[in-house]
């Protein structure tokens, strides 16, 4: 099914990319992050007009983030994953909103959840998190359990200046 695009990709971008057939109708293309924009623009002209999503994976052992661009063609009924790796210490990636305008909130979300910076994206303000001061929560070095216990447990909430009955009532609820 995807032989056609596979061959074309190999012939046109052969030295820049590595292609792998993952699944019938699913093709994985790995490339350098500076080349992603070229590749996506080319794919868009090759009937891969639908950018379904951008996802991010934290490869903490390799000290890298991986960005996956999911593009789809309605004509060839193919799904292509364009993958690229970023340095985890200074994660940034070119914004692709010039190719797909609706990539803006995807990038905004990745910025919020992983701390990946997208120069060129006009709005990288917070989207989901409320008053967030900690590490971006989807990073693997962030410990949600510690966070939850530190912030939401009743222990952290002082009981001074309250009458005894009320303290009794509240502390009975404490689950430990």
């Amino acid at each position: 099914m995807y032989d056609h695009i596979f061959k074309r990709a190999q012939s046109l971008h052969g030295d820049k990319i590595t292609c792998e057939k993952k699944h019938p109708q699913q093709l994985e293309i790995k490339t350098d992050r500076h080349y992603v924009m070229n590749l996506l623009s080319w794919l868009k002209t090759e009937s891969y007009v639908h950018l379904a999503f951008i996802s991010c994976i934290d490869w903490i052992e390799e000290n890298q983030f991986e960005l996956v661009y999911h593009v789809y063609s309605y004509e060839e009924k193919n799904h292509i994953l364009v993958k690229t790796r970023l340095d985890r210490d200074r994660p940034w990636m070119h914004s692709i909103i010039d190719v797909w305008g609706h990539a803006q909130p995807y990038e905004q979300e990745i910025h919020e959840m992983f701390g990946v910076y997208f120069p060129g994206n006009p709005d990288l303000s917070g989207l989901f998190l409320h008053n967030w001061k900690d590490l971006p929560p989807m990073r693997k070095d962030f410990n949600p359990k510690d966070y939850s216990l530190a912030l939401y447990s009743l222990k952290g909430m002082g009981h001074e200046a309250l009458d005894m009955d009320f303290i009794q009532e509240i502390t009975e609820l404490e689950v430990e």
Partner: protein
Amino acid sequence: MEHDNIYLTNLRDEKQNMWTGLANYFRKRSMWMLYYCTGCGAIELPPTMTSRYDMERLGMGPMATPRQADLLLITGYLSVKTLKRVIWSYEQMQEPKYVVGFGSCPINGGIYWDAYPVINHLEAFMPVDMSIAGCMPRPQAIIDAFEKLMDEIQQGKAVGYKRYRKHYDWYKRNQDLVLNRQSAVLTPYVDPFASMPTAAELMAQESEDSHV
């Protein structure tokens, strides 16, 4: 935004007399609820309301806005972001008002006990008059809880709103701790791109680094 509808007057301990008893009868027989669909539990309410279990028998019914409602239902998990809205709505409700927590999440976090965006104890942020255990509670359990709540209202025990008024400072502090905290909980995060550099600047810097 000042919250004018929280008025911190001294709480008079109202004794149960004939008039409050009568008023409580009307209150228990006409509980209008604001079911704030915070989480998964909202799906259990339609069967409770419609012909299978028919909540209207008890004089209960859904209301459109917090101004009109007596009963706030926290259905399921409550994320921090929703918490702010729930408190806003609760403070807009008029007294006497009651809160019912649905399922295990408002009690102790449930399966989300270790999740970063979901609070664990609703009791710390607003007074809860009745909690229903279960994940999710069945409509029978919900009706049962409402009947128990009605008993408590009649006996003058469901006074969460008075507790909220009396210990407003404590509740407010807990709310601020979660909603308006000034510092990080675990590790503070410093955004390396806080200066919002352009791609060209970043690339120039990178090539500089690689030369070094």
